């Protein structure tokens, strides 16, 4: 008999404290590829599932740097190379005038990178996700909390992972078909 591909195993909890505790114990048990779903922000949950680093700040910094260089470069090119114009006897290379544009484009570059980078890194919008195959997962947007061990985890074994999650006293444990 051919087994259906499995994305992972998911446990349902009723309170944020339970899912937080469960996430900590799952990581302590050695699982690394885990994820949690909650209708409200839960303090400490991101750290508990091992989300402690993101490349986003680096992208935002580079985006800001790019914006700033573009702003300054644009002004410099226009005023010094392309169309030098004598304004009130000031030198062509009047850099103080260009700082506001440099500043604005730094902000623009950084904020656009922050929004687009966030979407690129978290994969939103996602029209389909394997977790949707669990009917009760719809409650993750109302009043239930879910913890998921993914099949790609090195330690993953369907029976073991299910048994482990059962041991955390959840409201229910579900297999997620891929």
């Amino acid at each position, binding site marked *: 008999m051919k087994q259906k591909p499995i994305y992972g195993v998911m446990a349902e909890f009723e309170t944020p404290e339970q899912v937080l505790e469960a996430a900590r114990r799952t990581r302590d048990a050695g699982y690394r590829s885990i994820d949690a779903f909650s209708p409200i922000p839960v303090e*400490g949950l991101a750290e508990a599932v091992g989300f402690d680093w993101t490349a986003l700040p680096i992208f935002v910094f580079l985006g800001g740097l790019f914006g700033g260089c573009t702003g300054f470069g644009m002004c410099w090119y226009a005023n010094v190379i392309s169309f030098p114009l004598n304004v009130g006897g000031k030198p062509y290379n009047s850099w*103080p005038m260009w700082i506001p544009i440099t500043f604005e484009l730094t902000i623009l570059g950084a904020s656009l990178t922050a929004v687009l980078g966030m979407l690129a890194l978290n994969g939103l919008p996602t029209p389909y996700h394997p977790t949707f195959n669990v009917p009760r997962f719809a409650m993750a947007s109302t009043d239930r909390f879910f913890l998921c061990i993914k099949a790609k985890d090195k330690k993953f074994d369907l029976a073991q992972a299910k048994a482990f999650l059962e041991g955390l006293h959840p409201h229910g444990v579900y297999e997620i078909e891929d």
Partner: protein
Amino acid sequence: MSSSDTVQPVLDRAQRRALALGVVGIVVAVLLGWRAHDAVIGWQKFLQSYLFAYVFWTVVSLGCLGVLMLHHMTGGWWGYPIRRIVEAGSRLLPFMAVLFIPLVFGLGSLYEWAQPDKVAADPILEYKKPYLNPSFFTARTIIYFAIWILLVYLFNKWSAEQDRTGDPRLQGRMASLAAPGFVIWAITMTGAMIDWVMSLDARWFSTIYGLIFMISGGLAAMSLSAIVVRFLSDYEPLKDCVEPKRFIDLGNLMLAQVLLWTYMSFSQFLIIWSGNLKNEIPWYKERMAGNWGTIAATLLIFHFFVPFFLLLQRGMKRRIRNLATIAVLLLLLTLVDVYWQIEPAFGTPPELKLLDVFAVIGIGGLWIAAFLGQLKKRPLLPLHDPRFEAVLEHQHGD
């Protein structure tokens, strides 16, 4: 209270040292002025250094009052560990009012507009005489201090009452006073800085000037708080609240103030540079020539670029130790900024004058000693702030 037993001797020792340092500083500064070959010039030099040191430490006290009101309005975890520190700093304003007295007697040595012969010879000074004259100047200063001391008195009185009774209505009362208080603080501080500092050069004016000092004051108050929290964090009761992450907001606020300071300072420069008017540009010309220019560049690098890039990093803000190190830099650079604003007006070359050093140490030592004395008077954390209690409960709940 056994918890304060451990920190009390440390504060006592620090207070004694600061007091000794302050007395030595003031005595040496007075002697340096005294021993000058010409008594009149000696007195003048002493007053110039005194004004510089005085303005810096008063701006720190005023910054403490501003940060206190800001936090009463907005709340947020960042303000609770530093509440008592900024309250203690704000309670030094009566002390600063007393220290203003030598300046009242030396107006003629400091300000051109206080010298009748110069005023008579200069139509601009003559024109400004109804505002810039010694008696009105002194009256205004008395009004500024009266308003500040009233605000300080009310906030500290209600805060002490909150500690005692835990009456939840007090928080609302402090918040309602903080909003108009902040506006009044901004107006009076602009007035004070125009009077005490900007009028050193009576022909030059800038409307953003007061704001720069407000930002400097807020930044200095937050930097001072970060340093004090760093030292107190080895002892109860602050030991429990210095877990990493808790100070990210304070670090972010310091970053915002660094940006604001740069924004305001640069705006003033850009407008005057673009206008290129001959009554405005001399102020910058003398502050950008020679070694004053080197100091200006130092400010740009160490008051903006270095703290900006350091404070952008989460790791720097997570640990109070790192934040306190940046705070020391920012406090020093605020001092340099005040120096760069004030000293060129006296036409002296930019050299490290012993008199300046000892004046800053003198007033600073007395300030710190009085500050620690005030800090010791009350529990180091607010006792019955309803919002703070909610946060603490949540923290211990999980």
